């Protein structure tokens, strides 16, 4: 049975018609105990059929460990978006981006395809001034309406800078990690495992926190 109903498929096709370049969904799963791995693959297969600019590659977290480390993938399921040159642009989803997270996943695809809007000049300058690697984790739940906005912002920054790696983390799938960072309100944003804030804050706040890591 299809996960996406006909109406939703139609809507997504229309959104995807705005894609600029091709993208690749590199999906990492693992054998054995893997919550939502099967659904994630099924979901991604359906997404692939909705645009000829989208192709799917599946990997195993352990068997393809080299590939995994290339994209800093340490959990499964994990979806990495690659641009038309098959380059990782720092846009990653850990856990299935269903529920409200479809609203960060679809924009992620469009962004990596090159259809996103440019960052305002002043913010772009701040992003370009970075000199050290930055990891942004955005913890979400699938029922949170404004979490996707925070994920989108993190991914936008990552797309603009080779130094930023931004990942959505679905808090219930990865509850150990969530507990480690005391996630009890979402979206919770953790930068370089050290600086954190809660809420879908403006890009300026993201950049303020990022500046602390430099």
């Amino acid at each position, binding site marked *: 049975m299809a*996960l*996406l109903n006909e109406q*939703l498929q139609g*809507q*997504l096709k*229309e*959104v995807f*018609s*705005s*894609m600029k370049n091709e993208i690749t969904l590199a999906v990492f799963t693992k054998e054995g105990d893997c919550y939502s791995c099967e*659904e994630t693959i099924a*979901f991604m297969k359906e997404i692939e059929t909705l645009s000829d600019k989208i192709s799917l590659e599946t990997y195993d977290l352990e068997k393809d460990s080299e590939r995994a480390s290339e994209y800093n993938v340490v959990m499964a399921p994990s979806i990495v978006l690659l641009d038309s040159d098959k380059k990782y642009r720092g846009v990653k989803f850990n856990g*299935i981006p*269903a*529920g*409200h997270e*479809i*609203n960060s996943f*679809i*924009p992620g695809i*469009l962004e990596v395809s090159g*259809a*996103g809007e440019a960052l*305002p000049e*002043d913010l772009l300058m701040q992003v370009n001034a970075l000199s050290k690697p930055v990891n942004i984790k955005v913890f979400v*739940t*699938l*029922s*949170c*309406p*404004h*979490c*996707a906005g925070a994920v989108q912002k993190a991914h936008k920054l990552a797309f603009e800078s080779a130094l930023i790696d931004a990942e959505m983390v679905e*808090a*219930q799938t990865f509850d150990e990690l*969530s507990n480690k960072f*005391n*996630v*009890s*309100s*979402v979206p*919770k944003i953790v930068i370089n495992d050290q600086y954190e804030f*809660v809420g*879908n804050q*403006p*890009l*300026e706040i993201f950049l303020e926190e990022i500046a602390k890591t430099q």
Partner: protein
Amino acid sequence: MDFNLDMNLNDQYGKNKKATFDKETLYDMLIIGSGPAGLSAALYAKRKGLKVGVLSNKVGGQVVDTTSVENYLGFDFVTGEGLVEKFMHHVQTLDVPMLKDADVKSFEKTESGFEVALSRGEIIKSKTLILATGSKPRRLGVKGEDAFIGRGVAYCAICDGPLFEGRDVVVAGGGNSAVEAAIDLSKIANSVTLVHRSEFRADQIIIDQLKRLSNVTIHLQTEIQEVFGDGLVSGVKVLDKATGETRELKIEGLFVEIGYLPNNQLVIDQLDLNNRGEIIVNALNETSMKGVFAAGDVTDTPYKQIIVAASEGAKAALTANDYINRG
């Protein structure tokens, strides 16, 4: 598995891109806020032929955080988000420019009207302003609350509920929001205790629903005095007002649903506010400053309801239209 696709994604990208703001234009009306009041004002203004734009920092406002809406005429059941989607779709068929993630810093009266300054330094000019900035969750104001925000103290049950799967939680409040949050949480949490300092204010129909749930306990006339824990919330101290006894409830999550405070930061020194900080408006939605109108939760209009906010937004737009026509 559910997918809650935002129907307005299409407008953000590529060929379906909608009207954008023009910084050179003198707008007839700028609406600050995009909840029910702001969107309804946009609809009425555009239909009157006004040059109107919306400055938004959270599309849909607080309605988005509501699981279900069952008292908006014409909808026996709709999710908060579903309702906002319909509002947005309606407004966007008229091609009203909307700036998202716009943080309005200040506004100033000028000869031709107003200059609105955004935090990124942009200035937008307009003849009239409609303030529909809504409200934000009120805090309990008890010891420990601030320290445990994001560490067990939460203000959005649908967002943070899943993180308390199988745990014991307290919901503070006795209005519709609190009762709805308790009902939602009862499906996820091990137990839910609703604590309210007076009697229920919620609609009887949902109180009855709440009372039928086996893992829900209700403590009325009970006041939360302190939130405590070690790094994360481990309990709350409550006072039973009837017996004068204090006791501790061992819980891991406290969901605060005790009403709202107006988002009045923008006007606090410029407009007349009542003692609750709400903008004082008359029946025509006029504020104490000429050319500035206000609608929805940020005003002193009684009953913070979606349908009330929407109708107030309509009124504000019509009054502003008359004001512009009078010159």
